[in-house]
């Protein structure tokens, strides 16, 4: 992974000093609330229901064991002994004290970490595929460009105060796992007709109040121009994005208002001035950064391992875990492992300091000391030998990190919601927990098969509910908490936005509603059809009919 040189380190150290002074001035009354707000937000600090929340950047989801241990220690010392992985691959601490945040950032800086631009109206943490560099379906590893873009966007002087937040995702796979179409800018890497790395540029996607998938603004962009092209897009947005209405301030609204053709015309006119200028990435700079993402020193291994095969045959629990939590790897004899942060009945994405230490130890022992966070809020050991899988499973299971539910109904994506977030309309974590309890039968879960269930506590959609096969959104009705249900959303290359099935439900009804949706699926499915396939084939009407019909009988 990328390692800081003295330039990176100095910048982070200077940021800590700057923020320390800003916090001091705020506490001394020299900065007003309004003046301090963007400063603290751009350092990841929110003021939440109970306490501030600090969001720590995990650039494109890559962490070292050393960094995870530091996060564990910080969570113990400055928080309540746990952290939460967010849908943007970052870590959130729910209970730090404002006064302590400069010290926390200083601690983070010692392990090449920070909280820069994890919030606020600026370019946010760039996200990507959790299997970057190892996925068999990957065409291009986008991490070197992602790192170059991280540096470019860090304290970008022109884009420090945009109309609204700005999210970029990069992906270089057949099957897009980074939801590039749901981002302000999505960069899809591919090899062009000349065998060169090129980029398809999507713009104006986003979830939130007005969910919309992005539009292609450029089919073919040579990688050298990615900074200048993004700069052109964001410059047009900075000047013309709506600052008069927070709900209309995202770039997607501008793209819609102008139409993609006119927006593209403006971007290309701007780009004409920048193309081939100093922002053009040199081969030397790409090489310098790409060097940090070279393949791990893999052993030459056979494609099969006898001890692994034996364990698989004799131990059904292990076999179940392998089926759900172990993923293909491009190198023979290696696998990627997802450590589930979704045990049934616990807040999705939460991890205790003790568990962080366990994961760090596992990474050191079995996966070259690195790990990744995914936007599905799990952790990944990317490079485990087949022969080590059993040992990894035993240790992970002892630490509660081996729930074999990855990709299943209980692998719920869930935002912090009303328990923590001051913007929430409704709680989301208790809904996730109740659904997990309702479906706490692994055989049944396996029978239901692949299903993505996403929950957001308000229309800001941090839980990506629009792209869940089943999406749940907390809504406010006369001051009480209700839940609106969508089905048919999907991430990936064939992404879609879910459709609302009808009037919303109370919290108590929710597990039953999900149950009824599943009943329709089980009744209607053909062959190997997944839930989403059935919804796409038969439409929402049968689901709607069953969910609401039974409800009338019951009540």
């Amino acid at each position: 992974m990328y390692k800081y040189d003295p330039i990176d380190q100095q910048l982070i150290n200077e940021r800590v000093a700057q923020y320390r002074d800003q916090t001091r001035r705020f506490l001394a009354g020299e900065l007003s609330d309004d003046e301090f707000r963007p400063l603290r937000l751009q350092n990841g600090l929110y003021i939440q229901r109970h306490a501030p929340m600090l969001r720590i950047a995990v650039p494109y989801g890559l962490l070292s064991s050393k960094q995870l241990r530091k996060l564990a220690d910080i969570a113990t010392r400055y928080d309540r002994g746990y952290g939460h992985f967010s849908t943007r691959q970052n870590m959130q601490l729910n209970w730090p004290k404002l006064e302590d945040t400069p010290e926390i950032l200083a601690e983070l800086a010692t392990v090449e970490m920070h909280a820069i631009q994890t919030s606020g109206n600026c370019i946010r943490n760039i996200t990507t595929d959790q299997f970057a560099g190892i996925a068999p379906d990957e065409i291009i590893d986008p991490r070197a460009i992602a790192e170059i873009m991280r540096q470019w966007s860090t304290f970008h002087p022109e884009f420090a105060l945009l109309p609204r937040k700005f999210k970029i995702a990069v992906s270089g796979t057949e099957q897009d796992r980074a939801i590039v179409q749901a981002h302000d800018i999505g960069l899809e890497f591919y090899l062009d007709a000349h065998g060169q790395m090129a980029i398809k540029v999507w713009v104006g996607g986003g979830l939130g109040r007005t969910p919309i998938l992005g539009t292609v603004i450029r089919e073919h962009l040579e990688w050298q121009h990615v900074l200048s092209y993004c700069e052109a897009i964001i410059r047009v947005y900075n000047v013309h994005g709506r600052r008069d209405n927070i709900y209309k301030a995202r770039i997607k609204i501008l793209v819609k208002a102008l139409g993609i053709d006119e927006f593209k015309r403006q971007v290309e006119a701007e780009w004409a001035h920048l193309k081939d200028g100093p922002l053009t990435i040199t081969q030397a700079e790409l090489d310098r950064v790409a060097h940090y993402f070279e393949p791990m020193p893999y052993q030459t291994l056979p494609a099969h391992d006898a001890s692994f095969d034996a364990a698989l045959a004799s131990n059904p629990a292990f076999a179940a875990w392998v089926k759900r939590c172990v993923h293909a790897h491009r190198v023979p004899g290696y696998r990627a492992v997802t450590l589930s942060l979704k045990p049934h009945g616990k807040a999705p994405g939460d991890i205790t300091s003790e568990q962080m230490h366990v994961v760090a130890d596992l990474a050191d022992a079995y996966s070259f000391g690195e790990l990744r966070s995914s936007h599905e809020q799990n952790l990944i050991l990317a490079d485990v030998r087949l022969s080590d899988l059993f040992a990894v499973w035993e240790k992970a299971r002892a630490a509660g990190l081996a729930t074999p539910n990855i990709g299943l109904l209980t692998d719920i994506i869930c935002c912090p919601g009303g328990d923590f977030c001051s913007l929430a309309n409704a709680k989301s974590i208790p809904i996730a927990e109740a659904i997990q309890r309702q479906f706490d039968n692994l055989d049944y879960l396996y029978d239901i098969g692949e299903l993505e269930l996403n929950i957001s506590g308000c229309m800001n959609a941090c839980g990506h509910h629009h792209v869940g096969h089943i999406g749940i959104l907390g809504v406010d009705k006369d001051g009480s908490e209700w839940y609106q249900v969508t089905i048919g959303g999907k991430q990936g290359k064939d992404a879609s936005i879910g459709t609302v099935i009808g009037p919303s439900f109370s919290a108590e009804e929710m597990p039953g509603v999900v149950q009824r949706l599943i009943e329709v699926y089980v009744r209607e499915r053909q062959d190997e059809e997944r839930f989403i396939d059935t919804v796409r084939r038969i439409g929402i009407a049968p689901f709607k009919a069953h969910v609401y019909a039974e409800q009338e009988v019951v009540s």
Partner: protein
Amino acid sequence: MSQLIQLQANGQARVVEDTWTRVIPPAAADAAVRKQAGKVVLFKLTGEASFTEEQLAQTHIPPTGNILVPLAVWQAHKATLQPRLAAGEIGIVLATHETVEALQAEFADLNQLPLIAIFVERFSDGRIFTLGHWLRSRCGFKNELRAIGDVLRDQLFFHKRAGFNSFLIRADRSAEAALSGLNDFSQPYQGAVDDVPVWRRLNRSQA
């Protein structure tokens, strides 16, 4: 105490006396509060008019000395102000919702102006940075570029990198204290008006 910080040619910044007098149109008669989605609108959209004709007609313009006038005031009064432009007494204020094109339409050669100021009504309006960028890199403006309005220490580093070389700090804050904000970072990553990207600036390969 002056509120004006100026970057000297050697890169040092100092608090200096302000030799320019700002011309400010009187407040509008019907200052109705605009709302959007239940919230007071804090920012004008790019391209919105800045002043009513009435405001412009009633604007008092000092007869002598260096004056800093809003673009709309210049447009309304240019017949009388033209000779003073030739004498180097006119600086123009562009608001963040106004466009560089509108400025260029008035002044074929922007370097006739010894001073252009960008007025930012709220510090969180990042359009000021793009305007600075355009004036320096696209329009070739070489003279003094000043940030005025809600100008605060914690944005100065960005202003500087966007091409500004003077900064009129908001009246209730100390300009002396704000000086340090110009040097928050020693080696920024990205290119900007003032420099190329770090990987063109320095040799990073030995790391």
